[in-house]
């Protein structure tokens, strides 16, 4: 497919002129505790057909920057500097001008497709709304155009989909609908705020392919906001790195990712786990020491877990899964959402019952233990959850949180408990002063350290970690993983490590188990499963995981496309018909839009 030569509508002049530019953008929020300078005078521009990635960790101000382009900041924000979208200056527009600009000139693709779509409206209603508001098409024409848009983003049977509601679509399809809505009015620039963060890796790869073809075929500029360096390597032409409201480095993807100049960029890149490089990046994993005759720390035999549902057949979340974790071994449990990996983790903790099969912890069958014995068994298992914000009781100070398991099992007195807590705080590299602090006073990474310390309080033989680093920024994740390997070496616990991130598993695990729809697809030693996968599903998963190096990622992308071709599947791309007509908003049809054009012009002139 070749790039279509379509001249852009409106007044965008020669190619190369920026479609979105920030000049000296500065944003301040007034809060209860004084002013917060969220963005500190940055300059950035996006040209047609170009993807600019804005990279940074949470709180760096990247989302705030993008919101200024749409004029969508809360009322306590003060914006200075000039933001241009095409030929319009955002600061000079009134409410009506802004509404007209949003969708027409600049559109947004949000992170979470479920919340970006209105659950009580059909897909068709939501797609045609934008078309009708901007006067592009009405009635039947709008419906036809909506179907055309859905077909463009690769949704099969578009006419039928128009009548469906968002919950009837899968996550990937929902994100395609969001993209279809974004391109409905043919904006000059699309702002994609973490467009793939909520998606599985294979779906992520598809959505990225789609976005890439979008800029190639429609010549749209894309401002891509992300924290995932792999996505940056896959998509970006240029990269801007943001730190605490400042742009610390800008350049082409190759410059920034391969030859970073700024200290922060280097640190950020060093923290990204690389799939395929194996362990060692964040400290070596100790080899398994358990003798074969030792009892396994966790042994699941033909495990079946079912959820009963009212008025519906029972749902089998886990189907005939057998796996074992030897003492001192880390087993990575990998799979996409809905594969049953968290369910298995919960079952291994004895929190949900098994429908059939056995769960045994160091030779004790969990399903048959009751009362005191059960409590004694739980003593030997620790747990770390994904979300550090919800896994600590907000009412208890950190010292109490970590000491709680000791109190529950009536071990030691106040003094020895305190000693143990301080020892653990040292082990997870937190200052002892957090002893009396409350969870909300700590950052996400610090909270996750507390969570790990709590899991280790009773010196468990088995640790169940359910996505322990997924909610953390990448540099924080690196620190936590480093600490985790050190702790594992020191305490020699066995670990069931659940994650969707193959790179993290590659760093830590001795063995890997791949799950799909509640069944085990493949299991074996790490090198075998992750580096020489036998099963097609594993190959797909690995092919879809992006790596933070543009050339390598391009090679991987092409390899993935080859793999998909071999499996007889299409690569996701924007399907643009040869006779595709660009929608023309009404103000271009000759001054009949109640002076809207004049208004916009005046606004633009006024402040430029």
């Amino acid at each position, binding site marked *: 497919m070749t790039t279509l030569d379509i001249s852009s509508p409106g007044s965008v002049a020669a190619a190369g002129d920026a479609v979105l530019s920030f000049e000296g953008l500065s944003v301040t929020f007034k809060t209860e505790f004084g002013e917060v300078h969220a963005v500190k005078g940055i300059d950035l521009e996006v040209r047609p057909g170009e993807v600019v990635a804005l990279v940074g960790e949470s709180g760096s101000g990247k989302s705030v920057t993008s919101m200024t382009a749409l004029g969508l900041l809360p009322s306590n924000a003060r914006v200075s500097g000039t933001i241009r979208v095409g030929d319009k200056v955002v600061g000079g527009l009134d409410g009506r001008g802004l509404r007209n600009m949003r969708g027409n000139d600049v559109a947004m693709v949000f992170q979470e497709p479920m919340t970006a779509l209105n659950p009580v409206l059909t897909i068709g209603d939501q797609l045609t709304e934008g078309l009708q508001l901007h006067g592009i098409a009405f009635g039947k024409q709008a419906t036809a155009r909506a179907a055309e848009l859905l077909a463009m983003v690769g949704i099969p049977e578009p006419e039928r989909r128009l009548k469906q509601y968002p919950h009837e679509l899968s996550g990937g399809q929902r994100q395609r609908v969001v993209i279809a809505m974004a391109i409905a009015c043919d904006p000059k620039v699309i702002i994609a705020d973490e467009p793939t963060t909520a998606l599985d890796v294979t779906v992520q790869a598809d959505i990225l392919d789609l976005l890439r073809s979008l800029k190639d075929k429609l010549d749209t500029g894309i401002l891509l906001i992300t924290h995932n360096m792999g996505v940056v390597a896959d998509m970006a032409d240029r990269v801007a790195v943001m730190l605490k409201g400042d742009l610390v480095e800008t350049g082409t993807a190759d410059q920034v990712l391969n030859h970073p100049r700024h200290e922060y960029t280097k640190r950020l890149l060093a923290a990204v786990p690389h799939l395929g490089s194996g362990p060692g990046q964040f400290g070596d994993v100790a080899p398994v020491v358990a003798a074969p005759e030792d009892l396994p720390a966790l042994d699941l035999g033909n495990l079946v877990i079912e959820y009963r549902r009212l008025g519906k057949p029972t749902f089998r979340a886990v189907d005939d899964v057998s796996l074992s974790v030897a003492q001192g071994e880390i087993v990575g449990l990998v799979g996409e959402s809905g594969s049953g990996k968290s369910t298995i983790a919960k079952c291994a903790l004895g929190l949900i019952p098994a429908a059939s099969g056995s769960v045994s912890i160091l030779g004790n069958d969990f399903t048959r233990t009751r009362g005191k014995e059960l409590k004694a068994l739980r003593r030997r298992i620790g747990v770390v959850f994904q979300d550090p914000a919800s896994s600590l009781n907000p009412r208890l100070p950190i010292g109490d949180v970590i000491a709680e398991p000791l109190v*529950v099992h009536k071990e030691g007195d106040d003094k020895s408990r305190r000693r143990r807590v301080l020892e653990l705080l040292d082990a997870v590299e937190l200052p002892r002063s957090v002893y009396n602090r409350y969870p909300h*006073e700590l950052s996400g990474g610090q909270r996750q350290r507390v969570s790990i310390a709590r899991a280790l309080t009773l010196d468990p033989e088995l640790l*169940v970690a359910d996505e322990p680093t997924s909610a953390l920024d990448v540099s924080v994740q690196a620190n936590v993983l480093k*600490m985790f390997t050190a702790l594992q070496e020191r305490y020699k616990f066995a670990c069931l490590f659940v994650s969707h991130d193959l790179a993290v598993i590659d760093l830590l695990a001795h063995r890997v188990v791949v799950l799909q729809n509640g069944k085990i697809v493949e299991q074996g030693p790490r090198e075998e499963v992750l580096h020489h996968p036998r099963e097609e599903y594993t190959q797909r998963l690995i092919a879809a995981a992006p790596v933070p190096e543009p050339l390598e990622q391009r090679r991987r992308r092409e390899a993935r496309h080859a793999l998909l071709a071999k499996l007889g599947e299409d690569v996701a791309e924007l399907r643009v018909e040869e006779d595709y007509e660009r929608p023309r908003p009404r103000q271009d049809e000759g001054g009949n839009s109640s002076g809207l054009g004049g208004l916009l012009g005046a606004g633009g002139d006024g402040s430029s």
Partner: protein
Amino acid sequence: MSDIRNSTPGGEDYEPQISATGTDAVGLAAGGSADPLPGEDKSYSQGQLVARRFFRHKAALTSMIVLGLIIVVAFTSIGTGPIPGWWPKDYTLQYDKIGDGAPTWAYPFGQDTGGKDYFALVMRGTQFSLIIAFSVGIISTIVGTLVGALAGFYRGWVESVLMRLTDVFIVIPLLVVAAVLGKTAAGWGIWGLALVLGLITWTGLARLVRGEVLSLRERDFVVAARAVGTSSWRIITRHVLPNSVGVIIVSATLAIAGAILLETALSYLGFGVQAPDTSLGTLIDEYQSAFATRPWLFWWPGLMILTIALCVNFIGDGLRDAFDPRQNRTKD
């Protein structure tokens, strides 16, 4: 491992700062007006934090002082039981009337039709109203919290039984039960009335607490506690209820304010506190016809009811703000 104190707001190395306005939770130190005390590594206990936040809430603090004054004056002026008060006149004795009984220096609240000292009467009424209000508040809060927490935490048949019981209490008209039972209970004195009112007004709180517990029991920290082997009772008392304290406190203050009004209504209808004793509602009932001619007989007890109810509500508001550790957040 890098130095943990090398701070990056919002990042891994971020070190929280204690400021005059509580704790800076979102890393506002950069531009904040807060005055972080350098080198100070002090943490505040939960109690201290709650007190700090409560005392910053001006309306609550004022209400606390006003309510405290009312309580002290009501109980010390005419005394309770065998303990005599500092006010020289007795609420049961009739004195010579001065003029039409309008407020004077000798009788600051005036005199009623029979020449009784109205200040003494209102103080006696306030005592009774306060006793009823607080006992009802406490009883209904305990019952409601217990029912709601058990229903929400255990689910299953426990929930079915308890919530259907709640429904039964809700569908019976409150005032009718209160009137019928109150009449009987009034025979046991004021405490009987308080007990009865407390045992029929817990339903709203039970529902609120159940809802709160339902969402809390799915949170990771509760799951983590279960995984460690914590007993259900300990989970409820240590992890679940402390996190619903906001709902409980607000509801308790509403219950207290509601109890004052309920007692007033009952007494006004003649089912509450019986003569020769008196309550604020009884006083209003007795002198409602005097509203036009001798307004002080209506206004003093009315004003007292209003002030107490308002104070309690403000205090509840302040306490809820103070108990919520996320109060200092500006994001979300």
